[in-house]
C-alpha cells in the first residue's frame, strides 16, 4: 500500500491536481457541472415565470389604468367574478379535450400500421409523411386551411359537386359548433387544431407500440385470445402510456395556441388570445398573469393524472 502512494509523482501540474481533487470529490464535480444549467433554469426560466405570476397579485388602478405595485387580491376577485373569464377557460379546455381525443383516435391506427404492418421502406415514407408538415410554415398551413374550409372553398365545392351540400348544411346547422361556414365555426377550429397537432400524437404512440414485444402478442394468441381480446387486453394497456404522452402535447399546445383561433373560427377568444390581448393591447399585466396561471393549474392536474397512468415511461 505504501509503495503505491509513493509511486505518485510529487510535483504534479495544477491541472492534474485539480483533476484528482475532483475525482476524489464526486459531489463537488456534480455540483460544478450542474450549477450553470440549474441557474439558467431557476433564474431565467422559472424566475421570470414566477415574476410574471406574482404580477397577478398586483392590480390596475381603477382611475388611471396604471399598475399599482402593491399586494392586492383585486385582480383575482375580478378574474373569478366575471363569468366571461370562465367562458374563456371552459371553452379552451373543452377544445383541448376534444382535439386530444380526436388526435388519439386518428393517430392510433396510423401508428399501429406503421409499427406492425409497414415494411421498412413504407415505414420510412410514413415517418416522412408524418414529419413533413412540421417542416413547412405553420402559418402557411393555417391560412391554407382557411381557404379549404371557406364558404366557397374546396370542401363545400366538393360537397356540392357530389350533391351532398345538404349534408354539409346539416352539419353546419348543429347549434353551437356549427356556423355559416366551416371556416367560421367551432368545427373548423377543431379540424385545424387536430390537423396541426396530430404528428405530436402519432410519434409517441409509435414509440410506445414499438416497445410492445411481438412475443407477448403471439403468446396471447397461443393462449386462445381472439384478435379483439389481444388488442383490448394486451396491446392497448401496454401502448396507453404513449397515448397519454401524446395527449400531453396535443392538450397543452391546443390550450395555449392563439393563432389558429384568430384565423379560423368565429372570433371567440381562447386562452392564448386573451392573454395576448390583455398584456399587449390593454397593458393589463395583472389580469394577463392571472390568465397565465390557469393553463399551468390545468396542466398540473393533467400531468399528475398522466403520471399515474405511466405516461412518462413512454416519453
Amino acid at each position, binding site marked *: 500500500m505504501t509503495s503505491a502512494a509513493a509511486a505518485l509523482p510529487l510535483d504534479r501540474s495544477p491541472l492534474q491536481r485539480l483533476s484528482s481533487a475532483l475525482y476524489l470529490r464526486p459531489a463537488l464535480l456534480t455540483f460544478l457541472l450542474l450549477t450553470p444549467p440549474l441557474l439558467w433554469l431557476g433564474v431565467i426560466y422559472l424566475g421570470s415565470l414566477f415574476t410574471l405570476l406574482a404580477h397577478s397579485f398586483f392590480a390596475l388602478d381603477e382611475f*388611471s389604468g396604471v399598475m399599482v405595485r402593491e399586494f392586492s387580491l383585486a385582480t383575482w376577485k375580478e378574474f373569478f367574478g366575471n363569468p366571461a373569464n370562465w367562458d374563456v377557460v371552459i371553452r379552451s379546455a373543452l377544445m383541448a379535450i376534444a382535439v386530444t381525443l380526436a388526435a388519439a383516435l386518428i393517430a392510433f391506427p396510423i401508428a399501429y400500421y406503421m409499427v406492425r404492418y409497414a415494411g421498412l421502406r413504407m415505414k420510412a415514407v410514413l415517418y416522412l409523411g408524418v414529419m413533413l408538415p412540421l417542416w413547412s410554415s405553420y402559418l402557411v398551413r393555417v391560412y391554407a386551411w382557411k381557404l379549404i374550409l371557406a364558404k366557397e372553398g374546396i370542401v363545400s365545392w366538393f360537397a356540392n359537386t357530389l350533391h351532398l351540400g345538404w349534408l354539409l348544411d346539416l352539419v353546419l346547422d348543429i347549434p353551437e359548433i356549427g356556423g355559416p361556414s366551416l371556416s367560421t365555426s367551432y368545427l373548423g377550429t377543431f379540424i385545424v387544431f387536430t390537423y396541426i397537432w396530430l404528428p405530436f400524437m402519432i410519434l409517441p404512440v409509435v414509440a410506445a407500440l414499438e416497445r410492445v414485444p411481438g412475443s407477448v402478442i403471439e403468446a396471447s394468441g397461443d393462449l386462445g385470445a381472439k384478435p379483439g381480446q389481444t388488442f383490448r387486453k394486451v396491446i392497448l394497456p401496454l401502448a396507453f402510456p404513449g397515448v397519454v404522452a401524446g395527449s400531453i402535447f396535443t392538450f397543452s399546445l391546443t390550450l395555449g395556441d392563439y393563432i389558429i383561433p384568430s384565423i379560423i373560427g*368565429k372570433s371567440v377568444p381562447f386562452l392564448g388570445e386573451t392573454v395576448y390581448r390583455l398584456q399587449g393591447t390593454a397593458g393589463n399585466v395583472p389580469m394577463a398573469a392571472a390568465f397565465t396561471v390557469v393553463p399551468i393549474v390545468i396542466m398540473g392536474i393533467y400531468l399528475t393524472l398522466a403520471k399515474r397512468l405511466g405516461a412518462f415511461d413512454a416519453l
Partner: protein
Amino acid sequence: METYAFPVSGRVCARILTIAMAAAFGAGLGGAQAQGLQTVGKGEGQVDIVAWPGYIERGETDKSYDWVTEFEKKTGCKVNVKTAGTSDEMVALMNEGGFDLVTASGDASLRLIAGKRVQEVNVNLIPSYSKVDPRLQNAPWHTVEGKHYGVPYQWGYNVLAYNTKVFKKPPTSWSVVFEEQKLPDGKSNKGRVQAFDGPIYIADAALYLKSAKPALGIKDPYQLNEDQYKAALDLLRKQRKLVSRYWHDAMIQVDDFKNEGVVASSSWGFQVNLLQSEKRPIGSIVPKEGATGWADTTMLHVNAKNPNCAYMWMEHSINAKTQGDLAAWFGSVPSVPAACKGNALLGDKGCETNGYNEFDRISFWKTPTAKCADHPEKGCVPYYRWVSDYIAVLGGR
C-alpha cells in the same frame, strides 16, 4: 402576428459608411444633448425609425415607390426601419428605446407623450412645417399645452365597404352592420357582415349611437360615461349575433369578401383598392354618421441618438413629393395639401379619392382615458376596460 417584414437593404455604400463613422466621432456628445435642439447640425450618419409596414419605402417592393434613397444620398443619413404591426407594439418598442423616430397613430401618441417617451419638437427647425395642412398643425393628438410633439405624417379612415351587387345603391348608414335587417337583395344581413376585432371598435358603435340615439348625448366616441358605454356594449352584443368573423388582418378580410359571402363591413381603403384592382364588385363610402379614422405623427424619442438626422427626416417626411408618393402607395391622405397637385403616382384626383374632403366627418383615434373633458365630474371609461369588455362581447357575453 400582424407584423410584416420590410427588410432594410443591406447595401451600405462605403462612402456613406465613412461619413457615418466620421460623423459619429465628430458629433461626440451629440446624443446626450438631444433635448431641445436649437440648430440642425451635421447628420450622425443614420436614423432609426419605428414605422407601420409600407410607410417608409425604398423601392424594394415597387421601384417607383421610393422616398428613402434620395434622402440618404442627400443627407448621408442611412435610414433603418423597424416595422410594427400594432400601436401597442410601437409603444413597447419606444419604451425599450434605441430608436429615434416613430410614426405613431392617435391611440399611441398621447400615451407616448404622457409616458415621457417622446420629446417636444422644435418646429422652427422644420421649414416645411408651415406648409402642413392647417387642420393638422395643432391637432390634439400631438400638441399638448401648446407644445408640438411631432410632425403630422398621413391620415386615413375606416370606410364602410359593401358589395355592389347586393347594394345597387350605396348604403347610407352603419346600421347595415349593427342592426339585423333585410338587405336590398331580400336576405338578412345575419352572417354576412363583419366588424373590426379590436377594442377601439367600441368607438365605432358609439359613433353610430351618437346619431341613432341622440338621447344618450354622446359627443366624442372616445369619451364615454358609464351609460353611454353600456349602450355601446349592448349594441355590440346584438352585433355579435350578426357577425360570423371579426377581422383584424387585412388580407383575411379580403379573402372573406371573396370566399365567405361577406357583403358589408368596416374596412380600410387598402382592402377596397385591392379588391377593386381584382375587379371584385366592392364599393366604399363614409356613411351619414361619419367614420372613425387614424392620423399618424412622426415623433422624436426623448433619448434620440441621432437628432440631426431625425430632424432632417422630419423635414423630408413632409416634403410634397414624399407625401404624394406615400399617399398613392398607402391609400392615405397627405398632411401637406401641396402634395395633392402634380404628383404622377397620386394623380390630381388622388387626394379626393383617398378622402381629403372628409376630414370634418372623421373621429380620429384617441386612447380613452378616465380623466376626460366631456365628463369632468364622473370621468370616462378607460381603455383597459374597453379591452376586457370587448373580449367578453366576442365571447358572447
